[in-house]
């Protein structure tokens, strides 16, 4: 199973700033291993962030997003103590959801 994400969500003025680190190889499908065999592509394809059940960001990614992806964005509102949820899905169909408390 994939490792948990690290999500930080902080109130900045009247917005909430969300910073996410995801544990993922993000294999491009172009790299060759030590034996010279091409390593198949393996990467996160979609990311969705929600707050109070409402989508605050959704994204589609290709394999050129860097390994162990980082993402930062801001949405209006958000109160301390409430939760932000982030879900990613990769091209193998693996899915991971984590949440963070806004502080």
């Amino acid at each position, binding site marked *: 199973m994939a*490792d*948990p994400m*690290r999500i930080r969500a902080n109130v900045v003025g009247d917005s909430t700033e969300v*910073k996410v*680190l995801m*544990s993922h*190889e993000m*294999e491009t499908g172009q790299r060759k291993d030590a034996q010279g065999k091409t*390593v198949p592509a393996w990467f996160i394809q979609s990311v969705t962030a929600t707050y109070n059940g409402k989508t605050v960001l959704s994204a589609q990614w290709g394999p050129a997003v*860097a*390994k*162990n992806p*980082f993402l*930062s964005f801001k949405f209006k509102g958000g109160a301390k103590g409430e939760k932000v949820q982030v879900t990613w899905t990769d091209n193998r169909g693996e899915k991971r959801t984590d949440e963070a408390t806004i502080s």
Partner: protein
Amino acid sequence: MNIMTRRASVRVAIAAVVVGAAATVALAQTSAVEEIEKYRAALQDGNPADLWEARGEDLWKSPRGPKKVSFATCDLGQGPGVVKGAYAQLPKYFADAGRVMDLETRLVYCMVTQQGYTDADARKNPFGGPGQKSDIEALVAYVTSQSRGVKMNVALDHPKEKEAFALGEKMFVFRGGPHDFSCATCHAETGKRIRLQDLPNLMTVAGAQKAYTTWPAYRVSQGEMRTFQWRLNDCFRQQRFPDLIFTSDASIALTMYLAHNANGAAFNAPAIKR
């Protein structure tokens, strides 16, 4: 005009050309260095080493190995299970092992003596790669993070601590391999760089402090969180030496030399580097 003055004026002319050309090139260079600084600054916010740190904390606190015990009884030098500030005082002499140990060596020791792993199992994956994450790297990320802000304070009290330091100091200048490289080839002058990467002068207190307190680090070129053992191993690889054995006496001696030279500086890792 006599020959002497003519020569002198030719020299002056050449010097002027050199200075002029150098100035133009230097200008392009300054902006390149400034842009690289921006690149490094942009990476500081959001260090993937955090992912290793979280996994390492979990590994530290969970029962592991054939004996199903956690690291709660592992003494890193500050008492069983104490991680706070422990890394800032390593390497040190451990009476129970009769040997000077750095963090990685001590982790392997605890895995073998307390958790029941075989020595081979404990040290089989010190440096992770794609699809094979290293538990050692995760544990190191967690333990070192608990020394963030703590001043380096590596003692040379025990004779074996003194001995490790003295050996490390000599190994640092040992030239070998087809390229005649030693650690000192790249790390004994202040203000030098390889390509655009600044090289710390590890023979000065300031240089050792700056370098040692920023390892371990997430290495963006590799996408992995690398330990100081890895740093030494990869330096020797680039020196065209053979493969430095994980937790070998030489690796501990060199770590002792560099860690002690960094005394007094606040530890600030896991960091993020090229």
